[in-house]
């Protein structure tokens, strides 16, 4: 495996992490948000089973049912990342951030997507911003580690990965 490998996949725990941190407030009695929440649950199950294409379809249905749900765009972004579709991921994370500017998982996701596109400066800006508002920073340290690896700065990459491991062990995921 090398630092620049494409197709890095974000697995169910990541999605569970997103699920925990994202605001999913499907209001009772409203068809759109309720339908959206149900489709998101289906998408989570499908992605846990490795069925990414079907999960993406469900999430597209979820954002159609409730275009104001940042969590649905956020998840969609991570699934696009998992498929290696960086442009689609950037669009999805930007949509999430338009709805909720301080959505830290989307900020981290945007940084990772920009990293995949090779836009290192923009990626660093997003990841650094995510770190400042993120009390669960191990994923963000991971992103910064990837960034420094791409710049062949292994000393800094090691610092970030070690910090990611430490914060993970401290429960800051």
């Amino acid at each position, binding site marked *: *495996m*090398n*630092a620049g*490998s494409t*197709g*890095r*996949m*974000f*697995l*169910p*725990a*990541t999605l569970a*992490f997103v699920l925990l941190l994202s605001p999913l407030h499907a209001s009772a009695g409203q068809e759109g948000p309720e339908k959206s929440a149900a489709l998101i649950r289906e998408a989570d199950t499908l992605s*846990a*089973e*490795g*069925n990414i294409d079907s999960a993406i379809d469900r999430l597209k249905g979820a954002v159609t049912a409730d275009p104001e749900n940042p969590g649905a765009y956020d998840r969609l972004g991570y699934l696009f990342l998992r498929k290696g579709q960086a442009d689609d991921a950037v669009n999805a994370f930007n949509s999430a951030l338009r709805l909720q500017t301080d959505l830290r998982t989307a900020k981290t996701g945007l940084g990772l997507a920009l990293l995949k596109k090779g836009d290192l400066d923009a990626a660093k800006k997003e990841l650094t911003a995510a770190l400042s508002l993120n009390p669960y920073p*191990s*994923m963000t*340290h*991971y992103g910064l*580690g*990837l960034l420094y*690896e791409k710049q*062949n700065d*292994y*000393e800094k*990459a*090691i610092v970030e*990965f*070690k910090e*990611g*491991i430490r914060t*993970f*062990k401290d429960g800051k*995921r």
Partner: protein
Amino acid sequence: MNTTTKRMVVLYLLLFLFVLSITLVCSAQAQALLQTGAQAPNFTLSGVDGKDVSLSAIPEKKVVLVFWSTWSANSKKALRRFEEFYEKFKDRGILIAGINAENQTISPEDRENIKKTMKELGITFPVLLDRNLGSFHDYGVIALPSTVVIVDGKITYELPGLPLVGTEQMFDYLLTLVGEKPRTEVVPKYQPRYDAIADANLGRAFIKKKMNMMAYPLLKKAIEKDPRYMLPYVELAKLYVTDGDNANAEEILRKALTVEPDNVAVLTELGYLFCMTGRIKDAIDILDKAAQMGSYTPSHYYLAYALGKDGRLKEALAAFDTALSLNPFDYRIYLLRAETYENGKMLKEASADYRKALELLLQISN
């Protein structure tokens, strides 16, 4: 505070402690590691055929779980042996179930590979897909393949890897379960006392919640109740190390070795302790002995780490490779190899391994 208020406070306190103990017991069960005599953790997994299977719903009282993957060479050998056994004895109230631990998630390609392997080997027993490696972790699997035998809901036999002698002994034990005469005398696996297991599990649950002071008396009590039960010795030693008391850690491990001199887990922990306290030659000796006993993965990667500390990088990397061939899902292998690389100023390799360790913790894969 009047008497009624005092009573209410005591009542609430007792209620809180009760709820806490229930939570901790549940947590202990959830993280129960491979251990003979313990209750087998339940699971519900999808079969390759798409049907869900729960351990608790399997009608057979005797169940053999074979953890395997297509990338592990010994897994195929194990599956062949179990298929032969299943063909002969499937009508004797025993079920063989393959638990595929291919990857952290099973992709469509993985699923095809699994089906292809099953077809190639002619596997007729059910094969279940371990999504997110949940059962792999619940059963504390440390190597692939691994076998767990469950009778009436309890683990009665466990075998990591496919060691020559151990495998034959296990099949002899399986013969006794189906009413056949074993080829050699079967020595039943030691079953620790139930109350000692309960104390040890509760102690481990406290450790997980970083309540170390609560864990000490429970682990000591578990040892008192059943001195032949090795797990609490190891947990207690780890606890002493965490709290910086290496002398007591060593003492408790040496005490365990007076009871069972060749226990691979105890030898491995003692070797690692030696390594961490700078006694590298002693560490290598004891870890080499443990590694030669077979498929206990930590003995291989701690040996590798010790060899690295001794400046024997080539041998260290070979030992790390052995550990990875047994269990590529253990982040500690990558973490220790990263440190070994970093000490050798091989920063690119170190970075890649730290990254891989973090990816395993965060469950990110390529």
